């Protein structure tokens, strides 16, 4: 960021750094400008035209997400011209897809719904024209309904610019434009690795986490911040809990390091074990060829006894330890200490490969 410059937004004198966009400085100063295609940490697209503001006295409209501030600039965020433009954009989007909130998983957490409510539009002036895409339901993680897609491109930018999987792009053109993996394949038949970042980025109900569908409305969901248990990176994420059950994992860019709102497919979708009926809840000891439930005291006693007798009979190097990448560094440290100091062997390894 460069020099300090001053400008006026809605009559208020504001100081900004050169290089900042109008949207950024407005946000910093608590001035609300609605957006749709804007997505933090990606290149501004200026595509939805919802964030347009009026600049100067000539009445020129510019997208605030990609217009840099300049000294002495006079910006107005809610003139009649601006509101007319926003209303038309909102109505064009409304009429171009299946934006029926009654049957939408994103009801209550949808940026298009918020925009239309904010603008107070009761119905679009244009006739609704459904694109008629088939809903993609061919994988167990992400449901794609392009009839709800507003082509903001956020999923594409997150896939290409942040995750750099380069699976998604726009294909076709004009009103036939669609977001697609190569050759318009379903996700499951594409190079997609199911990191789920596109779903987090989607402002509407076009991309939804399949396992969370009908498992709780946004306002019924409690978000619990936690650290992903799958490896030692320590990715921050939100468990979305409804009715005492984890139904999906979302992220929050504001959590910052280490993952800045991104996850891999394990952290994102690997949660079925939590309530799985096969999940071990007590230790099991194999006796007479059969696994039998035991208490922790019994289990530890059994282990200690066996280790002691093996060590005595065949020496400490007859024992080896393998720890897990899912443990923390501290736990792994303790484990190697235990193997070296208590068992007395250097046979210690770690599955740093997930």
């Amino acid at each position, binding site marked *: 960021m460069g020099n300090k410059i001053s400008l006026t937004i809605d009559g208020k004198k504001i100081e900004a750094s050169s290089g900042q966009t109008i949207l950024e400085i407005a946000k910093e100063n608590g001035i609300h400008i609605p957006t749709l295609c804007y997505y933090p940490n990606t290149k*501004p*697209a*200026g*595509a*939805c*035209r*919802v964030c*347009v503001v009026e600049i100067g006295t000539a009445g*020129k*409209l510019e*997208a605030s997400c*990609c*217009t*840099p501030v300049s000294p002495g600039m006079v910006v107005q965020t809610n003139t009649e011209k601006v509101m*007319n*433009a926003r209303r*038309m*954009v909102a109505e*064009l*989007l409304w*009429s*171009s897809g299946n934006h029926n909130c009654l049957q939408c998983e994103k009801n209550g957490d949808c940026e298009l719904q918020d925009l239309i409510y904010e603008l107070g539009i009761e119905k679009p*002036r*244009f*006739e609704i*024209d459904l694109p008629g895409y088939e809903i993609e339901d061919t994988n167990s993680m992400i449901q794609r309904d392009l009839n709800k897609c*507003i*082509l903001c*491109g956020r999923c594409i930018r997150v896939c290409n610019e942040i995750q750099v999987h*380069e*699976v*998604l*792009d*726009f*294909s*076709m*053109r*004009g*009103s*036939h*434009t669609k977001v*697609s*993996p*190569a*050759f*318009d394949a379903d996700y499951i038949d594409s*190079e997609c690795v199911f990191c789920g970042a596109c779903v987090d980025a989607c402002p509407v109900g076009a991309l939804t986490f399949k396992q969370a569908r009908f498992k709780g409305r946004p306002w019924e969901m409690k978000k619990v911040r936690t650290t992903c248990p799958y490896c030692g990176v320590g990715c921050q994420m939100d468990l979305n809990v409804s009715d005492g059950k984890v139904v999906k994992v979302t992220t929050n860019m504001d959590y910052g390091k280490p993952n800045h709102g991104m996850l891999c497919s394990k952290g994102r979708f690997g949660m079925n074990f939590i309530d799985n009926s096969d999940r071990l809840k007590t230790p099991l000891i194999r006796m007479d060829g059969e696994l039998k439930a035991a208490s922790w005291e019994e289990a530890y006693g059994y282990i200690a006894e066996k280790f002691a007798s093996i060590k005595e009979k065949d020496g400490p190097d007859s024992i080896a330890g393998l720890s897990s990448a899912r443990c923390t560094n501290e736990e792994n440290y303790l484990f190697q200490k235990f193997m070296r100091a208590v068992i007395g062997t250097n046979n210690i390894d770690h599955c740093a490969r997930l």
Partner: protein
Amino acid sequence: MNEETEERVSELANLYPSRKSALMPALEIAQRKNNNFLSNEDIKEVAKIVGVPNSRAFGVTTYYTMYNTKPVGKYHLQVDTNIPGFLSGAYEIVEHLKKKLGIEVGGTTGDGLFTLSSVEDLGSCGTCPVVQVNDTYYENLTIEKVDELVESLKSGKMPEPDTFSNFGTECNILLKNRGISDATDITVYKKGGGYEALKKTFKMQPSEIVDMVKGSMIRGRGGAGFPAGVKWGFLPKDNSRPVYLICNADEGEPGTFKDRQIMQYDPHLMIEGIAISAYAIGAEKAFIYIRGEFRWIADILENAIRQAKKDGQLNHVDIVVHRGAGSYVCGEETALIESIEGKRGNPRVKPPFPANVGLYGSPTIVNNVETLSCVPFIVEKGVQEFKKIGTEGNFGPKLYGVSGHVNKPGVYEYPLGTSLKVILETAGGVKGNLKAVIVGGLSVPILKADEIGDLKMDYDSCAKAGTMLGSGGIMVINDTMSIPELALRTINFYAHECCGQCVPGREGSKTIKVLLGKLTSGEGTIENIDTILDTCDTIKGLTLCPTGDAFAMPIEAMVAKFRGEFEDLVKRG
């Protein structure tokens, strides 16, 4: 694909600073190798060779209309049905071909011989109707000629095309060699004083040339009319990045077929203009972005560049011809830049402007063919001579393309500010009773016959008359034409060509298309008419690129000025 193809692609890639720019040329090679068809396997292979993700290669392939992702017949008959074609019987030819071949538009005959397509403006407005068969343009067609063409193709023979077209020049600058045979040859060009201006250039400082272009006040001939010298002046000082010059030869504005007169008949004039301009702005690499349909013209240009190189004219600049692949929007300078970079032709958000951050992130100047072709005259004869032509603030010669309902459609060179009436008389006069004229390519507001008066064809006079000079593509409409039908065909074009990035462009063009469709089929309401006007008004100045204005302005004018015709459609029901 084989090693030879890979080698060829690598050779092409070497022409560009980035290998990714070879994506479009590589797709073209792959398509030619596979009977004019790109399979998914072909696209995958190309993506691998060029080094781009499959998703990007697929996105690019499906953006441009010249890539066929479905197999086509041995002869792909592409009828230009855009406005000039529409005005001169192209739809009759489509209907005739449908019956004759027994297929619908988009269909292929059972024997795999013919595919029939209706395509957008081919840049043959003065020689309509035109059918492009594979790479070859068949112009000046009639039903009888179409029959002969099809019979010949059935016997496996591509007939020699009729290349006749009308032209005339009062200035003898841009079309001075138009009537001379073999002017494409450098020796002929030089005999007429060609490359003398370049010789003079080398004796001057680059800044002196820039000053001359600034002094001439030449305004960009592509359509916007922005002074070219001022544009050059936007290049950053103390810049360490390479500077690029791009010649915009993507002539695709319906009604416009002027640049091809220079490129096809006097290519060295343009090349000399590029060579001088590149020297002036310090560009060591220049690109000519030519629309893909002008394949044979691109060959003419490449040949002329080879000759000029051999003749030692281009030691200071390397000129690369980059072929488009079917996209109107690529005529917009940032979309054009994206296209050279091997991407979808989506216009960029501005700022930054190309003069600062353009091709490959470097300072870039994009000028139209006609603009650059004026530069040799300015340098050779001087600013004062140039400013003797035209009117105050609108200096120099201008190519006017006249099409539609006139007796001698063609390209005529006159000083800027020449009366429209004079130009129309030269074009053989109006056929029938004049109803309206579109004076600057399809993107400008239509003028009713009674609004024309003594309109002078220059930037300022046209603006005063409530329209724009644009590209100087004049489309003449007589009273046999229904304006609602014209409006529908107009919006169909823009909806087809819209890149799809921004909401008002994408959904706005589609929505107006639906509303005009309802009106013309007798299912519209008065409210629909007002909705169109209101939507057009809001779209102006709102879209990411100028395409929004390019359809909102003409549609608004057609509906507002001929509202009675639209209301009649509602009343008739």
